């Protein structure tokens, strides 16, 4: 069990996650660049959240049936998860070139029937939270204390099923369930605020019976602390404010585009930037 770490230890831990997140960004960009296909902006916006989950929060347990569960409901950000698996040593680095290739385990959207390190197959938006609810209910019935995490996009929250799941989990106070909304403010056709605004999002979620926290989704310490302070007896949601295409504090890829691909020059510049960032971390 994690005790109360010292301030220095906490700082070192956050720095470790930050390094790993930068490495994840390098890997996911390489994947997408080599595939010539994939959602770079969406993967980059949640790379810090995924890194906090993968390298700090997710307890794999002695076996998959008892450990924590991660549902990537915004399945188009699959490269962020694959990159975390490669950086974490769960997947061989050679697979970095197989994203979206025929017969690959690294499908364009996560497919658990092809890759066991995917807990739930997703892709069409709006469905992951319901499955997360079911898994949390099952764990309660089994008497297990593990946590089910579900990462959603903000545009995804326009899907009605998401609110069916919010309604159910709030009404039944489903424990062991944490939703994280990657609130990058951008979706396929433009800004969420222009297409169909979600605001006031925290008020809506509170009204649905959820414990709500808001964080800077690129601040590893804030994300981690919010996850640690989740409601133990009911569902919690963390609204993580992010930027689509976030490479680092002073750099965004492709002006935050949802699905544009970086050119060779843009890719090279991004790699340079991230490697410099990595050196600064060391």
């Amino acid at each position: 069990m994690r005790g109360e770490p010292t301030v220095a230890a906490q700082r070192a831990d956050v720095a470790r996650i930050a390094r790993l997140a930068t490495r994840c960004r390098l890997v996911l960009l390489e994947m997408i660049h080599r595939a010539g296909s994939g959602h770079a902006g969406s993967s980059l916006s949640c790379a810090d959240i995924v890194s906090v989950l993968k390298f700090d929060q997710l307890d794999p347990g002695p076996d998959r049936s008892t450990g924590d569960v991660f549902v990537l409901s915004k399945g188009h950000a699959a490269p962020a998860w694959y990159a975390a698996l490669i950086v974490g040593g769960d997947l061989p680095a050679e697979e970095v070139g197989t994203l979206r290739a025929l017969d690959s385990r690294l499908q364009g959207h996560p497919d658990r029937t092809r890759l066991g390190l995917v807990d739930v197959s997703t892709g069409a938006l709006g469905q992951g939270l319901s499955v997360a609810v079911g898994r949390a209910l099952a764990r309660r019935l089994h008497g297990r204390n593990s946590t089910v995490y579900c990462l959603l996009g903000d545009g995804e929250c326009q899907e009605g099923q998401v609110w069916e799941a919010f309604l159910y989990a709030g009404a039944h106070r489903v424990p062991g369930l944490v939703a994280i909304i990657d609130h990058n403010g951008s979706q396929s056709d433009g800004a969420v605020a222009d297409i169909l605004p979600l605001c006031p999002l925290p008020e809506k979620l509170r009204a649905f019976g959820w414990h709500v926290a808001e964080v800077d989704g690129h601040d590893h310490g804030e994300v981690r602390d919010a996850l640690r302070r989740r409601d133990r007896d009911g569902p919690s949601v963390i609204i993580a404010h992010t930027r689509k295409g976030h490479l680092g504090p002073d750099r965004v890829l492709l002006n935050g585009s949802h699905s544009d691909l970086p050119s060779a020059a843009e890719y090279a510049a991004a790699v340079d930037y991230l490697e410099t960032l990595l050196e600064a971390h060391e």
Partner: protein
Amino acid sequence: MTSTRDWFGTALVEIAREYDHIVVVNCDLAKATRTLPFKEEFPDRFFECGIAEANAIGVAAGLAQEGFRPFVASFGHFLTGKFLEIFQTVGLNDAGVVLVGTHAGLAIGRDGPTQMGLRDLALMRTLPNVGVFQPADGTETWQMMAHLATDRRPAYLRLCRQPLPEVHTDGYHFRPGIPHVLRAGADVVVFAMGGTVPVAVEAADRLAAHGALAHGAPANGSVAGGPVAGGLAAGGVSAAGVAAGGPAARGIAPTVVNVSSLPVDRETVERIVAGHQRVLVVEDHYAVGGLADELGRIVLGLPDRPRFDVLAVPDYGQAGPPEDLYRRYRLDAEGIAAHVTALLQDAPR
């Protein structure tokens, strides 16, 4: 006479006593889908999702992934309407959910086509790992439930609202994908599923007994003016045939087959069809995408291709008393018998 949804409700409680991994996910239709007795006996294993089928399907998939065997029940029309959700969270996840779709076909009657499960088979058949199950009576419902309780694969269980007679004997043994011959006859094979099975049997028995249509049974009037009337008048059960005492006097004896689960075993279908020159598929479903498409893919590929015909619902359906609807769409015993008779007038292929 008991509906398969009633048999399902009874069997569900019984198997849940034996298997504690059986759970139910409900969408505000526990009374109609007969999961209420389960709720009363196993409240901790009953998850009420309200009128929110998409979420219910996802919750069921999550429960299945954690080792439970969830039965998520609603009207088949509503449940399979959430096709994208079923495709992904059940199909692509290979989640062992049993989707229970009640009120199959026209039998819901006066509520009309917004409640009728008439295109559910077409949707579920597209999913390569989802088996379709539709029992024809109580014997078969119990055996299917025993199978579904221990099996771990995704499934669609299609159930009827209307009370049905037993068509199987105690010695019947359900095997997934294997159609069962209920009446062994000649010339024409009638394939049916679920609620149409006893109707097809009744039609066959009438024809086999004494050519009921040609003997002026009162019910004949309802079909006499229809498009197949000419076929009936010139039918193989003509008065001359009866008088002569030849084979036609015994009437037509079609083979009747219950296809209660899909995908269907190709070799069994080929064996059943062998020796018949005509095949008729009768289904309480749209003519597109259901049992006829399943069987057509097999039958029409046979070297001695038999004549293939379908009796199904060609439009959206409409409201009305069930008996009127089944008469209108010729899915009652008279309609089926008339169609068989007419089919026999046409030269085999």
